[in-house]
C-alpha cells in the first residue's frame, strides 16, 4: 500500500483560491491517521545525548601501554 500522501490537484492559481493552510492541515491530519494506523514508518531522528557519560566515577591520567612489535622468527629451510 502506498504511504505517499498526495497533494490535491487544485493547488495553484485559479478563480477559486485554495486555502493552503486548510489543505496542509488536512495533509498532516491524514499523515497522523496513517502513522497511527501503522501504515507509515516515521524514522526517529534525534540528537544523541551529547555529553552524557553518566555519573562520574574516576578522573585519571592514562598512558597507553605500547604493544611491542614482534618480528616473526625466520622459517627454517629444509636441507
Amino acid at each position, binding site marked *: 500500500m502506498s504511504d505517499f500522501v498526495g497533494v490535491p490537484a487544485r493547488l495553484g492559481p485559479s478563480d477559486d483560491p485554495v486555502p493552503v493552510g486548510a489543505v496542509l492541515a488536512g495533509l498532516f491530519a491524514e499523515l497522523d491517521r496513517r502513522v497511527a494506523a501503522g501504515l507509515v514508518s516515521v524514522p526517529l*531522528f534525534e*540528537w*544523541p545525548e551529547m555529553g552524557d*557519560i*553518566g*555519573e562520574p566515577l*574516576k578522573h585519571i591520567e*592514562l598512558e597507553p601501554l605500547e604493544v611491542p612489535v614482534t618480528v616473526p622468527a625466520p622459517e627454517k629451510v629444509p636441507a
Partner: protein
Amino acid sequence: MSGGEFGTGIPFAVGSVRGFRGWKVTTDGWLEPLSQSGRWFADGNEAICHGSPSQDQLPYPKEEDRDWTRYYAQRDAWRARHDMTECPHGFYAYTTAEEQYRTSVPAILGVIEGFGEVTIGTKGFRAMKARILALCVEPHQAMWRLEPFFVDLLKAHYPGVAFFDSLVAMRAEFPAELSVGTSS
C-alpha cells in the same frame, strides 16, 4: 606513585579506555565531530577546549572598561590550565553502540581509545587524547550504504584502523572497556 604527572594531583595509571562514538563524514572522506568543528586524524588526536570560565571565575569586562583583549587573554590562559573537572571538554565515547546511531546527520560509528587526562563515567568517558581503533560502515537509519570507492578513501585516510561492515562484528572485536588500574 602519587601526585600525578608533574604533581597535578591526578592519579596516574598505565592503560587506556575504549568506547563507541560517531562522526560525520565529509565528501572528501574525512571524519569530523557530529557537533563540533575539527578533523580527526589516524595518528592521534588531542582535544582543544572551546569553553569559557564562569562569570564568578572571570567576569566579562564592565561596560565602561570594554577591555576584551585582556579578557580573551585570561580566558585562553584558563583554557590552558583548567582540568576536566571544571569543564566538559574532551573527546566523548560511550559504552553502548546502538544509541550513537540516533543522529540527524549521516554518521559513521566507530571505536576510540582514550588516554591522557580522562574522566570515566558510568556510561562512557571523555578523554583529552584519542586514537581511532575501528570504524563500521554498516548502513543504518541515518546513513545509506557507502560506495566502495568512498570506503577505500576512508581507508586511505585512516590506515591502521580496522574497518567492519557489521556493528556486531566490530563490537565483538572491540568491546567498550572502562576499567583501568591505578598505580600504587
